[in-house]
């Protein structure tokens, strides 16, 4: 996901003057809305056998919203083709980022998403904080102590003071 995003801005950079990023966005959204309206909505929204009124249908609102998105993305696509794109200086910021930096970020997300219960709130908190500190190339040891102290303090606060349970970690039990 992140990778394609970065590519998108590079494409815009190179084809500056020809292709408006809004048109690209519009085209993607037209495709998404189309798939939603003609495949997902009919397949995954079940209609009851009988209804008192057609506006009561479970499909009514999702389809209304779907058509709204479809038509407006079409407008976005066309508008983008008519108008020349503008170049933004912000894109420069996203060039030449060390691969390790965003790989570590994705790894962090994955750890929280997949191993939160296994590692526990404290375990995953410490691991991810360390990874993300590494990603920013922090060198001071004292900062890494924070990566241990914060998850411990915060989860103890949640569990004991606020009575909000957090997982201990199935691996450690």
């Amino acid at each position, binding site marked *: 996901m*992140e990778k394609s*995003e*970065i590519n*998108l*801005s590079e494409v815009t950079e190179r084809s500056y003057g020809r292709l408006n990023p*809004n048109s690209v*966005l519009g085209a993607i959204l037209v495709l998404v809305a189309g798939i*939603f309206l003609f495949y*997902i909505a009919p397949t*995954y*929204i*079940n*209609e*009851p056998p009988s*209804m*008192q*009124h057609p*506006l*009561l249908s*479970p499909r*009514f*609102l*999702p389809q*209304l*919203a*779907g058509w*709204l*998105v479809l038509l*407006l993305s079409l407008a*976005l696509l066309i508008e983008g083709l008519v108008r020349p794109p503008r170049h933004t200086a912000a894109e420069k*910021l*996203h*060039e*030449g980022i060390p691969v390790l930096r965003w790989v*570590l*970020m994705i790894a962090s*997300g994955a750890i929280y*998403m997949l191993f*939160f219960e296994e590692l526990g*709130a404290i375990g*995953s*908190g410490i691991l*991810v*904080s360390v990874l*993300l*500190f590494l*990603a*920013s190339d*922090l060198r001071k040891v004292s900062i890494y102590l*924070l990566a241990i102290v*914060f*998850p411990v303090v*915060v*989860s103890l606060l*949640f569990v004991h003071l*606020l*009575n*909000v349970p*957090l*997982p201990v970690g199935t691996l450690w039990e």
Partner: protein
Amino acid sequence: MENFSEVLALFLSVDNFLAIAAGVLVGVVVGAIPGLTATMAVALALPFTFSMEPVTAILLLVGIYKGGMYGGSITAILIRTPGSPAAACTLLDGYPLAQQGKAKKALKTALYSSCVADMISNIALIFFAAYLAKIALNFGPPEYFWLICFSLTIIVSVSGDSVIKGLIAAGLGIIVSTVGLDAVYGTQRLTFDSYNLMDRVSFIPLLIGLFAIPEVIEFYTSKVLPHIRTAVSGASLTWKEFKGCLKSVVRGSIIGVIIGAIPGTGATSAAFISYSEAKRNSPRKANFGKGEIEGVAAAEAGNNGVAGATLIPLLSLGIPGDVITAIILGAFMIHGLTPGPVLFQENLTLVYALFCGILVSSVVLLVVGNAAIRYFSLIADIPKSILLPIVLMFCVYGAYAVNNNTFDIGLMLIFGVLGFIFNRTGVAAAPFLIGFILGPMFEDNLRRTLLISKGDPSIFFRGPIAWVFITLTVASLLFAIRRYWLSRQEASAA
């Protein structure tokens, strides 16, 4: 009032003041933690009130409620992480202000507007409760339907640079909001047979994901910039600046009071409507969304204006307007009190003692809030490389804690990626949120109306309240179209 001394005797106790102070403090802190909402704090505090005096118990809960309403704005402003749903509107201008090094100004604006709105709301509760309660009772499904239609028109004013993109985001938000079991027929909608999706997409993970996570992703996909120190978050708010916002604050408070008095609408809508109205009437329209203190003021006034007013249907009718007041209703019942007209007849002294406490709580909020700002604004000075991993941790813990479910962590991260894509493609995230909140309300009330009238559409035009909101909706749409037209002309002229 001959029993004034009785009221004072009931109210003037150390316990009550302690309860208010503790309540507001807990509310502010918990409200500021992403994922932990005022609702949760009130629910968790309830068992502690079992053994207290009734007035003390309820003041504690009301204090948490009010503190939580304000607390949510602190992290919204500082780290773009709305501590409570209603604070999502505050961050539209609050976070840009913080990034410009004006965090303190934004925090103070939020606090003062909150307190003013709170006071106005309390006064409405004390003096106009009976009148507002009557309006609330006349609000049936058709009237709600038009109120929601009017609320939907605010999407235009929070769409940022592109109205088309804003509307697309709102459409996507509506689609996401329909996930879950259908409210009328119980059929599955877009659940893909997952149990975790049957009760709809959880709100808090979506909220945090949409606003806080994109900042994290953005940081790790950009070059490392040197940290700019902002001399403890910049200058404070001047009286002149706040005076400029006062009109919006009062307007927002009144909007908050009206929305709060109607059960089931909520502080988030009030905040956005207030923001939208402020923007429409402001001479600095173009600066909204880019760091305008009036935007912060309007949003906070709208959301805190609701706090006192939600007690109106609760106290005068016995109807809880939202989850928090439902919990407070529970607290009343545990102490053998039944809110409603009977309460005013049988326990008038207690009601007035409560009113005194509620008034005091607004003042306490000012004091506690000021102290909180002093400490919380230190966050603005921590370099992002250290701050963001900790923010992420809070978000994950918070998202998990809502339902004690790891699925919600995944959900939050997915919406984080979506929010990031929105950021990069210039799509505003606020309309998505509004679509997500109002979509189901729109559908529910449309369907309820049709079910009640057995399909007869004339019910939609049945009374003056309906017509008021029809007029507002049409006017708001015409205004939006006119402004869109003007901006197009300007653009082509340039």
